[in-house]
Each structure stands twice: as C-alpha cells, then as structure tokens.
C-alpha cells in the first residue's frame, strides 16, 4: 500500500476544497493507503474542535474525527493556527500541530502528493 500526502490551504466554510480533501482521504484510507493531511493558512480551521453543524453548510468535524480514529494523520500548521487565535486547547482530538518542515517531510516520504493551494 502507498502513502498519500494532502496539503490543504483553503478555508473550511466558503470553499468546498476541504470537503474534497476529506472525501479523497476517506477513499484512500478505505483502499488501505496511509494518508497525511497538512492544514496550513485558512485550512487550519478544519483542526478546530466545536464546529457547529448547520443544514446550509457542510460539516467535517465528525468525518475527520472518525478518520483520525481510523488511522489518518492530520496536522495543522502551529503558526497559522495561533495567528488565527486557535490554541492547542482548541484542537480536535487526535489532531496535532507542527511546523512546515513536517509537511515537507511527509511529502518526501509520500508516493503521491496532492497540494491544494489557498483561495
């Protein structure tokens, strides 16, 4: 089985990019691949716990939490999160925070990289 590294830089609400990334990660995990998701810039919003579900917006906290429990690695850029007022205590359970070199190392070790830039 292979390893997929997904870098996400788009925002949680207002863009469907993270929805795509999560669905892709889910499909890859179902096929038995290792998946790392890196959240940077506005993408760090996905790492915040306590997202409230509304009918008009897609909601990713539950699928992401399930994926993490199932072995997905999700890491947010610490500086990007802190700059947005998201602190360690705000992190989704199982999600980690690291610096950018972690993402580059994840890409280095990956068989495939899908880097989804910001808006």
């Amino acid at each position, binding site marked *: 089985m292979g390893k997929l590294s997904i*870098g996400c*830089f788009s925002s949680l609400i207002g863009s469907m990019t993270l929805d795509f990334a999560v669905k892709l990660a889910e499909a890859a995990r179902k096929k038995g691949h290792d998946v790392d998701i890196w959240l*940077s*810039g506005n993408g760090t919003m996905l790492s915040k716990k306590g997202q409230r579900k509304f009918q008009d917006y897609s909601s990713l906290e539950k699928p992401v939490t399930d994926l993490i429990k199932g072995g997905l690695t999700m890491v947010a850029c610490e500086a990007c999160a802190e700059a947005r007022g998201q602190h360690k205590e705000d992190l989704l359970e199982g999600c980690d925070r690291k*610096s*950018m*070199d*972690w*993402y*580059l*190392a994840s*890409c*280095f*070790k*990956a068989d495939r*990289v899908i*880097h989804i*830039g*910001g*808006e």
Partner: protein
Amino acid sequence: MASKKFLFMVDKLPYKAESSRLALTHAIASQTVDIHLDEDDEMEEPVIAFVGDGVLNCMKGQKALECYGVTSLEMHIKNALLTDIKVLICKEDVERLGLSEDNLIMDAEDIGADMQSEIVPFDDILQQMEKSNHILYF
C-alpha cells in the same frame, strides 16, 4: 538513499492572499526538513518558480512593513536566496507585465546571499517541473 526534489510554483498576486507568502515560507522550511527524515534521505535544494501574475511578488522596493506591518515578500525572497533556494521568474510574464530585471529582486547581496534570481523562459520552468518529484502549486 533516497533523494527528492521539490518545486514550489507561485502564480498568485502578492498581498491579495497569503499563498505566495506560504509558498516562500514552505520552501525556506526545507532547510530544516532533515530532522524529520531518515539518515540516508536527502532533499535536494528546492526551486521556487514565479509565473503568471505571481512574478509581481518579485518586485523590488516593497513597503509591506510600513503599509501592513508585516514582513515583505521581498524579504522572504531574499531569505530564500540566502538559503540557496533557486528562484526562477518567468521571462514571458515579466515581459507581458512590462517589467525588466531593474524592477525585480535579482539578488540579496545586502544580506550576504551568493545566489541570484534567474529570469528564464517558461520552457525552463517546465523542465524543472519534469525533474521534480513533487510540485507544490500555491
């Protein structure tokens, strides 16, 4: 031993969003990636290529600190050169925007960098894309 090469591509305008800043900071972070790699693994010096409207990130004389209170992309580009990152600027886009070498950040001698930016035809950037293991398109 594994050796891999990364290309960072920027086609977004400066300061409109944070894409180009993140491209530069991620490229510069390659300097410390070794701590996460196996002993025999090696990341080649990365390349950052500015294409399309992204070449405007390379304009000289940016006043981001005065205007926005943030480090300018000019400073980030100079730091990239200081850390021996290859900086490529698309020639066709430089000409399309009526720019020349005189308008662009071609070196970072003021902070002690030996590396210089290069204005190259898009074909050369395409070659770099072909040589790279991963392209991170910001």
